[in-house]
């Protein structure tokens, strides 16, 4: 379980996240919705340690990890798939996966599991990641995160800018992971319909604050869109 408590994050003097509380339930999916510039990505970057919060805390299964560096949080089970289909472009697909499997006793099994989830990657193992399509790179990014053996997976707009057929594959994979158990997901997503269907709980953010929250199943996309003033 991941808890963000009263998190305040600033760039220099400008505070962009103003005391946000988010709870990602055990084996559940918490979705954060909001317009561009609402502070969603900043919130996630603070959760994984890429940004130091001005105040507040990040708890992973009750342990305060606020002062830990990102790689230390990964080792404690907090994996992150950043926005923009990021991979190591000059490394091959196989090397991208091997990189995170290195030093893990279950590295090979986890790599196989991740490739089972995205079988298209098996045929691309020798190709440099920089030559993959956006959808393939995103699948690679999620596979890489899964090999680290996460308890909580943080995904920042995993379907943004990706062709529709691959969007469905990625959405299906996220749902399959959540159903498998043992994994909680914190998801920032622009596709409101999918987000609400997947969500255990949802949060709407505006101007760095949570302005609405509820259970995923109970909310209609239209109601949430109205809160977000779409």
């Amino acid at each position, binding site marked *: 379980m991941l808890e963000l408590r009263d998190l305040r994050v600033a760039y220099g003097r400008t505070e962009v996240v103003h005391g946000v509380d988010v709870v990602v339930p055990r084996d559940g999916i918490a979705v954060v919705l909001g317009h561009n510039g609402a502070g969603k990505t900043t919130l996630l970057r603070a959760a*994984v*340690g*890429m940004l130091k919060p001005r105040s507040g805390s990040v708890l992973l299964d009750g342990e305060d990890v606020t002062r830990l*560096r*990102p*790689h230390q949080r*990964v*080792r404690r089970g907090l994996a*992150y798939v*950043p926005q923009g289909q*990021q*991979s*190591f*472009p*000059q*490394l091959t697909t196989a*090397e991208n996966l*091997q*990189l*995170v499997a*290195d*030093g893990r006793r279950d590295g090979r099994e986890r790599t196989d599991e991740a490739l089972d989830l995205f079988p298209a990657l098996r045929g691309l193992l020798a190709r440099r990641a*920089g030559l993959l399509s956006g959808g393939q790179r995103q699948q690679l990014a999620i596979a*890489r*995160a899964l090999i*680290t053996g996460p308890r909580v997976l943080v995904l920042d707009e995993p379907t943004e800018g990706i062709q529709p057929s691959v969007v469905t594959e990625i959405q299906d994979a996220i749902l399959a992971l959540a159903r498998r158990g043992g994994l909680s997901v914190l998801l920032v997503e622009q596709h409101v319909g999918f987000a609400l269907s997947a969500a255990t709980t949802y949060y709407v953010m505006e101007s760095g604050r949570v302005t609405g929250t509820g259970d995923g199943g109970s909310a209609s996309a239209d109601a949430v869109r109205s809160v977000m003033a779409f």
Partner: protein
Amino acid sequence: MDAVLGQLYAGLSLGSVLLLIALGLTLTFGQMGVINMAHGEFLMAGAYTTYVVQQVVGGAGLSLLIALPLAFLVGGLLGVLLETTLISRLYSRPLDTLLVTWGVALVLQQLARDVFGAPAVEVRTPEWLKGNVDLFGAPFTKGRLFILGLALTAVLVLGVVLRYTALGRRIRAVVQSRGLAETSGIDTRATDRLTFFIGSGLAGIAGVALTLIASTQPYMGQTYIVDAFLVVVAGGVGRVRGAVLMAFGLGVLQATFAYSQSVSTAKVLLLICVIAFLQVRPQGLFSVKSRSLV
């Protein structure tokens, strides 16, 4: 024909020295963007390591073989010490780093003066590296051939480490995206330290090699450091392949100019060539959108 081969050999020899020095810079400058002006002094430390080992062991041949790994260790540890105490506090401040490492270079030069004296110390060349071998009808000194072999071996070993080992994957990943590497569970600070260790250790090995062809004195690092940076920048920052080609290219070019001109004029002509080349190709010989080491 002999004259052409002679100049080519002189160029290859100079190129192999530049390559040994530039390889370390390719790692530290390429991965971390650190302009380490004390890199030349790590080389000097490697050369003095050879001298000290020779004083202790006696035999020049055995000393050389012991000095190679030891100089790697000495250079590497000096590098880690510098990285941990100063450079790690100056990331994203390249000009400050340049000034601070230049200051460290001066301190190390003075330290060498205090310990070993200002005049050059004598490092004996092993018997088996004295004299020439005949290559295609032109003489090539055994010492310079040894350096060429050492440089090519260093390139090969570094290439294998970068391409096929977990450490190599980590180094390449950090070069390409530090933030993504950190969020993929890689301790980028530890990787930085290891990279600095290897890069500085290579400078130590270069120092051992230089004892065969140059005098061992406190300022020897300064002679080569600017040329080594030229190799790294013109080869494409962070590109081992670029460093190899540019080291031998610049070495042969300088030897060619030196055939018909004075050494100073040859150096000026070489600099003009590099400046003209960087005007046309500011990214260097090889480049990718993200910096890469292979």
